[in-house]
């Protein structure tokens, strides 16, 4: 008898319809792309690219671990984006995306500033550590799911996450101390 993991229970082997994927997952994919370093001016394009890949590959999808599969596509698109010539380093403050936080609409200015500060901290991380941090802390994937999405061993993901956490923590501590 096969014992299914928690993630497999969450993602039963049912191949979803593309419209369902669009409706349910686009906001999270869009958010993940921002976290992975796609700048706000390009995030719609990148998200469209992810969705086109999803649409093309959906017939091949085995129906298991949908989120992992989607985020793996996100990672590849973000990686291609970083390699592309159009990427220029941007100041995160300038890139506060025109997002609509459905349940954060009443958020305070402080909250937005904190988020911008988090983006600043992530800017200095290498892409692998950044991905581990964003997928674990923001997108709430498990280490195992991240391992599957990235193709890296579980221990490696754990190490990347710890390194990213340490970096982000130091960044915030330095901010508290001031210039």
């Amino acid at each position, binding site marked *: 008898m096969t014992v299914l993991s928690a993630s497999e229970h969450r993602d039963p082997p049912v191949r979803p319809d593309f419209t369902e994927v669009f409706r349910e997952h686009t906001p999270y994919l869009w958010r993940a792309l921002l976290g992975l370093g796609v700048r706000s001016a390009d995030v719609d394009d990148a998200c469209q690219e992810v969705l086109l890949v999803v*649409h093309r590959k959906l017939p091949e999808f085995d129906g298991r671990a949908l989120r992992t599969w989607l985020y793996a596509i996100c990672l590849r698109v973000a990686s291609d984006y970083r390699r592309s010539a159009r990427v220029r380093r941007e100041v995160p403050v300038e890139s506060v995306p025109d997002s609509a936080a459905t*349940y954060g609409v009443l958020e305070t200015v402080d909250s937005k500033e904190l*988020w911008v500060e988090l983006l600043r901290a992530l800017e200095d991380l290498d892409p692998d550590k950044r991905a581990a941090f964003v997928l674990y802390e923001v997108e709430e994937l498990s280490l195992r799911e991240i391992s599957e999405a990235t193709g890296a061993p579980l221990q490696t993901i754990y190490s990347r996450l710890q390194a990213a956490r340490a970096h982000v923590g130091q960044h915030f501590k330095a901010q508290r101390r001031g210039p």
Partner: protein
Amino acid sequence: MIADPKRLFDADDPELSAAIGAARRRVPTRDRMNAIASRLAAAGVAVPPEFRPELSASEVPAALTTSGAVSKGLVAALAVAGVALVGVLAVIGFRAEPNAPSTASPVAGPTAPVVDSAAPALVPPPHAGDAVTKPALPSVELADPPEAAPRAEVTSNSAPVAPPVAARKPADTLAQSEIELLKRARSALSSDPSVSLQLVERARQHFPQSSFGQEREFIAISALYKLGRRSEAATRERAFRDRHPRSAYLPQLDRLSSGP
């Protein structure tokens, strides 16, 4: 086997937790979703009907005459316009209320889209046809068209003499009205939670297709806890958790429910 460590959002550093909470709350605007859907549709990808690119005013007759039937896109556009009209009436009701924030834009002609300068800069530049198609209120499902009931309810509350209004208003204007109402509800939480409850109930009635359902329900649950109606609050909290298992409000609900 490596266990998943406690996430920073749940850890002891409130600043980091808040930063991650803020990151989790980032989602694209409805307009951005629509824009992505439009581009996918242009590439031949089927998108959900509620995001389907609407027909512009100039395209409507052609669509009707060539197909002999109303397309799904047109149905969606009409449904959206219907909700927008109900919402506009709701706005009128709010404006008649003392102390109500006046966020609605002035009257606009039926073909001139009104851009609310006070609204967040979330909307791409308007273009021809926007007046018909842009008021894309959130979550308008073809299978669940707006009912006429809210309209009767709203008009009965409508005040004195309502000025002639345009048939169409930008969704942002309506959203801003609801946001203002929810802000008032939230700020009343500490001073008079019963007022908060009344305000969120009013928001629920006037904006049944709201994007801010989580915010509204969170305020209602908070108010109930503050009023000492713990049983009622707990019931609604459970329903909230079932509906929104990933909500950023859950830690705050934890604190509320474990409080005195």
